């Protein structure tokens, strides 16, 4: 018996429950986001050892975020602060990890905001609960508005402009910018920054989780347009693929990249990679722990409401020998 009545009854009861429970909807924007200075957060009640939760969007096993994690953990050891590192690439899950840390009443919170709007409510709840928040890596524009005490990162636009300038100075005329993470605003800003200072830039989408495919696509792009003489990769894994692709396509294109790893260090030494834009992400892990400790013990803030810049630093043939050993141990 297909009885609509029964279904309607269940739905009606449930709907009544929705109406009866004291609901509070989300608040809309009145387009006047107050970019406040330092938030007036209640002083956190200090009981037991100082604990900080680091919640990032860097997927597990990502070389870049491993360095951030190392930085945070080293700072924890040096300063006697308990550091827990969590990561989830999905903004909804990341918001829940923040809620989870708030529920645990951590002493401080470090958050990377690849998707600021999705994390807004969770971060503001943390601030309301009296937990000092430092944002890192991305989302600098929203940091102060959400009530964070500081932001530590590299302005992606600036870094892109720096890379574009260097490539232009090297006499390049046509650039291919390789985006490997759909959904990451920072990568688009890097390519746009490079466009501003370089000129002719085309972008290419590849899938970071499928290196074979990434290499094939870069090779295809180089083969189909022989006038491309520079490739800008946005992370070290893609850079290695781009170097191989250029070799296979016997293209004259030279590769520049963001971020360091052992492969990139070797390639810079060998001359197959022109330079790496280093945002020194170890500092993005280390410094927030210092800031939170200073805030807790001395009420200090830093940056004056402006982001603390960790980059762009440039690594090329001139300084590679200094940097190489640090990259090997996972801190550069």
């Amino acid at each position: 018996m297909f009885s609509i009545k029964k279904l309607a009854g269940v739905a009606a009861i449930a709907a009544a429950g929705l109406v009866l429970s004291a609901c509070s909807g989300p608040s809309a924007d009145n387009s006047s986001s107050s970019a406040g200075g330092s938030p007036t957060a209640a002083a956190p009640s200090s009981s037991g050892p100082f604990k900080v939760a680091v919640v990032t969007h860097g997927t597990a096993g990502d070389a870049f975020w491993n360095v951030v994690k190392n930085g945070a953990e080293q700072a924890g050891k040096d300063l006697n602060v308990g550091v827990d590192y969590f990561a989830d690439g999905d903004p909804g899950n990341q918001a829940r990890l923040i809620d989870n840390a708030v529920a645990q009443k951590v002493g401080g919170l470090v958050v990377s905001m690849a998707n600021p709007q999705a994390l807004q409510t969770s971060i503001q709840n943390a601030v309301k609960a009296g937990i000092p928040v430092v944002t890192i890596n991305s989302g600098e524009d929203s940091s102060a508005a959400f009530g964070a005490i500081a932001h530590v990162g590299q302005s992606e636009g600036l870094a892109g402009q720096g890379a574009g300038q260097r490539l232009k100075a090297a006499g390049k005329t046509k650039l291919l910018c390789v985006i490997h993470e759909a959904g990451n605003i920072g990568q688009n800003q890097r390519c746009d920054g490079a466009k501003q200072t370089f000129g002719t830039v085309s972008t290419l989408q590849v899938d970071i989780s499928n290196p074979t495919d990434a290499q094939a696509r870069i090779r295809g792009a180089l083969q189909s347009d022989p006038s491309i003489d520079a490739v800008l990769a946005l992370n070290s894994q893609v850079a290695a693929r781009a170097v191989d692709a250029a070799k296979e396509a016997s293209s004259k294109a030279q590769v520049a990249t963001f971020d360091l790893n052992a492969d990139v260090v070797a390639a810079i030494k060998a001359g197959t990679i022109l330079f790496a834009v280093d945002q020194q992400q170890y500092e993005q892990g280390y410094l927030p722990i210092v800031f939170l400790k200073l805030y807790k013990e001395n009420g200090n803030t830093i940056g004056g409401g402006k982001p603390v810049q960790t980059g762009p630093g440039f690594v090329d043939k001139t300084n590679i020998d200094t940097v190489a050993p640090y990259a090997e141990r996972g801190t550069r």
Partner: protein
Amino acid sequence: MTAAIQAHPDERVGKKSLTDRLVVRPEIGALLGAVLVFVFFSVVTGQFLSPLGVATWLDDSSTLGIMAVVVALLMVGGEFDLSAGVMTASTSLVTAILATQAGWNVWLALLVSLLFALGVGAFNGWLVMKTGLPSFIVTLGSFLALQGLNLGVTRLVTNTVQVSGMRSTSGYESAGGLFASTFSIGGTEFQSSIVWWIVVTAVAAVLLMRTRFGNWIFAVGGSQVSARSVGVPVVRTKILLFMGTALGAWLVGSINILRFASVQANQGIGLEFQYIIAAVIGGCLLTGGYGSAVGAAIGALIFGMARQGIVFAQWNSDWFMLFLGIMLLAAVLVNNAFRRRAERVRR
């Protein structure tokens, strides 16, 4: 004669013991698993049972649970929908692009994305029934197609890979009030998605266990040929089931876009397997014809409790997936043991 009948009652109408009646429910394994996980994390961690902690893991379970339930109905009907995960992002994107880029009222945008979802669901179902290809293959195709559409359209329209700015669209507050509000119990804020999850589970459970359509779902999942020969409208039933998963994805997509006010083009990928896993923990068989909506909801609850519990326990997050995998395997093994027992009882 009558005395003889009373002396030997027919075993088919005989009273079964309570344990025997319980053990044949598909949910029972999941329920025990949920109790185990709940007790374990309540004992091991300090914050798991705090009001805020409960709000966190219920929140995590809710959107997964909505999808697990609709996917469970489809699986009982003997089909898969691999496009369900990415569909949650597609519906968010349609709503967000119409509201923020075209300046529509949010309610109108929600209506259009609902029609879009139902259209894709109906197309999936129609293609599966028309071609006779396994739904695994057909929906894998639509999954990849939607993934490409999500990225392509988003970049075309916005020149970037996120659509944000929902908070300043017209009708955001009223729509948000329905889909993404919070309600307060004893001073702790709970997400309204938890209420949606309970509503969807209740409706699906009644539909499956108490209506003729529910019988049709079991029939087409058990044996399509037999179902057709006894007059069950097989094609209509299956197409409606695919539209059901699309409807669920629209609900989750709407909850997400109104709560997080932004959506990434690469969201939702990989979630389709979590829905299937939650449904399987809840007692659904991959072969169809057996399963339960309530079980799937409990499966999602186990998933959410484990995910957040591992974080509360402050175990090293490097091992996170390993813990999750072992936990899921254990849950499925327990289920399997119960199902064997249940089949013995039936005979």
